Each structure stands twice: as C-alpha cells, then as structure tokens.
C-alpha cells in the first residue's frame, strides 16, 4: 500500500513538472505595424521561449477594433490556451470575454493598459507617472512659466487618459505654465509631424513641447522648417534617444515606456500559472526620465545607443526583475520552437 502511494506521489510529481513545461499561451494585440507594439510582441515571444515553460504561443495580432479583439479572445479561449496576455483596445469593452476566460480557469494578464474586469491581472507602465515626470521636467526647464504645446496620444485610450492625469497634476503645480495648443496625434508619426508644422506656421510663440511618444518627427519638423529648437519631451524611442545624443542645440528628455512590458506580462502570467500570483492585481512599472542636460540622463542615453535596434523600437528592451531574455534574443524575435 505504502509503495503504491509513493509511486502515485512520484508520478504526480513527474506529471506536475511535465505539465509545467508545456503551457500554451495566447497573445492578443490590435495594432499591427507600430514599432512599440512590435517590440512588445517580440518581448512576449522571447520571454516565453526563455522561460522554457511555454510549449507554444498562439498569437492573434492584427489591426482591429474592440469587437474584433473580443472575437480573438474568444477564439483563443476556444483554442484551449492556459493563459492569455493581451494589450487591451479598450478598458471596458472586453470584460465579457475576460470573464468567460476566467470561468474556464484561463489566466488573463493585460499589459500596457488596464482593464476593468477584476478577473484580469494588469502589468502596466505607470502612465500617470509617465505624464507627470516628463511634464514636471519640462515646466522646471522653462523656469516655471511659459507656453507649451501639448501633443497627446489617441483619444479615449486608457494610457492617454492616465498620462493626461499626470500632465494635469504637474500643470497644477506650475500655475504660470500655459498650454497654448492641445492636439491628439493618434500616436501616428505623420499626423503628429503635420500638426506641429501647422502650429509652427500659425506663428503663435511657444517655449516647449510635450509629446506622448511621437517625438523624433517633432524634432525633424523643427530642423526642416528652420524653427529654433525649444525643449522637447518624448519617449525612449531609439530615434529620439539618438537625437538627444546628437542634435546640436536640442535640450530634451526621454521618459521610458518599455514595450518589453509584454515580456513582463508573460513572466507574470507564468508566475500565476505556477501558483505565485503577484500581491496586487495591478503591477505598475515605474518610468525613468533621461534628460540630456544632466550627467546621469546623458549617461543613460549614451548607454542606450544600439545600432542593431529598430529606430522605432523603445530602447529599454528589458525590464529588470521581470524579463530574463537577452538583448540578442528579443532582437531575434523568436517564440518557443522557432529559430
């Protein structure tokens, strides 16, 4: 009898470890062909492969609306995945599918932006802090008074709302700062460039520009139109970081917003599958600010230069404490079983 029990226990152990090696994971993303999102997908693949615990990734990655993401999520549920990591198109519209996944014991982790459904964990860059520290740096750079152009992201996106909350908080702390122009770039490079060129041509004076990550084209617009440079806040996209290091007379700051948050989401999903959920439902990764007029910031900017990196990718390709893959692995962008 004892022997049978031991054997059973041993078999259970073997089965347990065997199971840990062959999770299937679903990925859902609704923006295709955007550098930040492509880095996110590659980080997800690299982390899944590096963990050694994921047998296959099922990636639903296309340009669609929230209804299309609902369709993708339900198809992933039907495919019988163990966990789904998604970048939500909307904070509210996906709750029904997320609850359906939870009913089937599928772990759901939203990355980059939050979702309302309590069943999902959220691993996100702290977007409010992102908005705040960039705006605070800009307002202090202007000596606490002046006119700024405020170039937001996409209307209605959760990340844009949160960044706006941070921006407004910084604005309240600096009452002599005046927003002379507020636009939504839709996080589109061409649109943002046209908007700043249009505004420059109105001749209304301004002292600084805050951008929600559509940054290198703004610097280009100043250079191409011969407009004197003003302080510019952007994200840690490779192109902008390079401009911070090389463009004469440009004073600016990059606020980190790693697309590798996707890799962190995969890591958290695996932790939950292994029975170690994070303490809080919402895990926030704090941004850093790299200003090119401070020694520390410039050191970060210099260190981040990497000619192998796609210019539209954010330069912070790993998130210490979460991701375990190497720079080479994320650039190779191979998921489990690919080479």
């Amino acid at each position: 009898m004892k022997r049978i029990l031991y054997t059973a226990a041993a078999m259970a152990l073997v089965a347990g470890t065997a199971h840990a090696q062959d999770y299937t994971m679903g990925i859902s993303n609704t923006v295709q062909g955007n550098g930040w999102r492509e880095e996110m997908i590659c980080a997800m693949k690299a982390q899944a492969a590096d963990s050694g615990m994921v047998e296959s990734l099922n990636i639903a990655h296309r340009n669609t609306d929230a209804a299309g993401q609902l369709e993708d999520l339900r198809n992933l549920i039907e495919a019988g995945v163990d966990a789904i990591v998604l970048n939500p198109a909307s904070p509210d519209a996906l709750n029904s599918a997320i609850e359906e996944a939870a009913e089937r014991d599928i772990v759901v982790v939203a990355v980059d932006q939050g979702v309302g459904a309590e069943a999902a964990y959220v691993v996100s860059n702290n977007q409010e802090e992102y908005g705040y520290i960039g705006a605070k740096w800009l307002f202090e750079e202007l000596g606490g008074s002046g006119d700024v152009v405020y170039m937001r992201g996409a209307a209605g996106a959760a990340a844009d709302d949160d960044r706006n909350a941070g921006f407004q908080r910084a604005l309240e702390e600096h009452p002599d700062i005046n927003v002379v122009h507020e636009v939504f770039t839709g996080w589109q490079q061409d649109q943002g460039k046209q908007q700043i060129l249009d505004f420059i041509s109105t001749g209304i004076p301004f002292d600084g520009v805050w951008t929600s990550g559509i940054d290198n084209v703004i610097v280009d617009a100043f250079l191409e139109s011969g407009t004197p440079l003003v302080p510019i806040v952007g994200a840690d996209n490779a192109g902008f970081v390079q401009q911070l290091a090389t463009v004469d007379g440009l004073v600016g700051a990059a606020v980190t917003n790693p697309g590798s948050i996707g890799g962190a989401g995969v890591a958290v999903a695996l932790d939950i599958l292994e029975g170690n959920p994070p303490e809080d439902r919402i895990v926030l990764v704090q941004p850093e600010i790299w200003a090119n007029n401070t020694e520390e910031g410039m050191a970060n900017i210099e260190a981040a230069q990497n000619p192998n990196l796609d210019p539209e990718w954010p330069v912070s390709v790993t998130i210490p404490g979460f991701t375990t893959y190497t720079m080479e692995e994320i650039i190779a962008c191979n998921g489990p079983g690919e080479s």
Partner: protein
Amino acid sequence: MIRVLRNQAWVLGLVGLLFALALVTKAIQPTYSASGFESLARAALPFAFATAGMAVAILVGGIDLSVASMMAVASVTAAVLMEGAGVGTSIGVVFLVLGIGLAMGAINGALIVVTKVPDIVVTLAMLYVWEGVALLILNAPGGQVAPWLQQLIRGSVLPWVPNALILAVVGVAIVWVPIRRSKLGLAIYAVGSDPLAAYRSGVNIAGTRIAAYAICGLFSAMGGLTLAMSTGIGEPIPGPYLLAAVAAAVLGGVVLGGGIGGLVGPLLAVLILRLVRQDLTLASVDPNVTTIVEGTIMVGVVMLGGILALRSRRS
C-alpha cells in the same frame, strides 16, 4: 428560371463550403464545441448586418462605402443615450437609432439621385461625413449600452443555436422578407438589372434607389447596435466592416453591378469568413500570414465576383 437555379446553386455551394470548413475546424480542434460556434455567431453579428446592408445597395446597382461609418454613428448614439437609462428608455433608443439609420441611408440615396454623381463617389464622401458625425457625438470610446441588450446576444436557446445567430437571421428576415415580396423588392431587382427597362416598365427609379439605400442604412444601424451590444460601449472610429461586407456580399452571390443575388448567400458567406479567421487562430498560424490569407481570400472573392459580373453582362 436559369438565373434562379444558378443563385440556388451558389447558396448550396456555400452551405457545402461551410460544412467542409466545419470539418476542418473539428480536425484542427477536436474539442471544438457549441461554445466555439456561439463565439463565432457573436463575432459574425455586426458583419452580418453590414453585409446585408451592402448587399441591398449592390442589388440596386450601387455600392455603399459608408456602411462602417453609419455603424459607428449608430453605436455611439445608442451608447450615449442609453447610459444610465432604464429598460423602457433603452427600447425607445433602439427604435430611434434604427430611424437614424434609415435617415442616413436615405440621405446617401437622395444625394446620389439628385447630384447624379456615381454611388461610389457620393458614399466615399459620406464615409467621412458620418465618421465626423460619430466623433462629434462621442470623441472617444465611451457611453454604456443597456445591460439587457448586452445579455440578449449571449448564450444559446438550444445547443448549436446561439442567440446571436437567431438575432441575425430574424433581424435580416424581418426587414427583408416583406420587402422582397413587395413591389419595392421587385423594383430593386429591376433597377439593379436594367434601369432603362425598369423605367420603361413604369418603375420609379429615383424612389427605388433612395429606398434601397435607406434599407442599407437601416441594416447598418442594426449592425452598429449589435456592435455596441457586444462591447457594451460606443466606438466612434469605424471598425473593419466595409471591405469585409463587400467581400461577404460578393462571396454570397450578389453580383457587383446589381440585379442578381439574395441575402441568404451573403449571411452564409459571413459565417464562412469568420470561421476562416477562427480556424487560423485555432491552428495558431503566424499572425502576419493570417492577414495575408484573409486579404487574399477577400481579393480573390471580389475578383471572382467581378469576372462573373463581366461574363453575365456579355452573355
């Protein structure tokens, strides 16, 4: 008679294709069950109405490129007006939105008839107009759809008969069957086949075209409503429904140029196209390849439809 037979042959072919795809699905995913079909039906719902609307516009000899934008107007109007409203109010809102859909479609039709500018140009312009209207109503995703409406499309009355499928079939039939059997239905086919012959037979061409576009607007409003019902909110930016609707209508046997086809084929075609997407996800096909496959199917189908239209014109 031959024409009728050919249409039925097309529909029967689609049924066969759907069953073949179902077998493929079962092969890819042996555990595929009624819940998989239920999600398929829910995903197909907005596409079904968009396609029905597009099919009617094509039948009368035109095309409506503003279908997705009209859906957006309907979805944001419903979500904004229903926020915090009771059951009674939300029923009223449903009828109001359907009325707005009819009006939008009638405006499209009237502009085409009055200006004599080609349908494709007018509705392309209206695509932007209705998109702007949707953004004016709601500049970012928001609002809330009445919970009972969201519940309506969930679940199944019988296994393999999802509520969403019933709503699609009943919704299209309630509008289309009476029209198809009336003088107006005959007139739509007559104008689509040969406007001159229809005119000489005493058909009111202008009125028929305006009516057909109004029906298209009504179906678009139904599509927008179901879109909002599935997400629970209104989204002002039009989704990927325009090209999908054209592809499904043509795959469904509606001939570009007008006069030939029905609405049964297009509805089957919607299910087929959604099932292709589901199979590609279940089979875990590389996402970039998935887009190529979907795009190739759509282009192939539209091209095939175009060739068939040319041939039927020659013969």
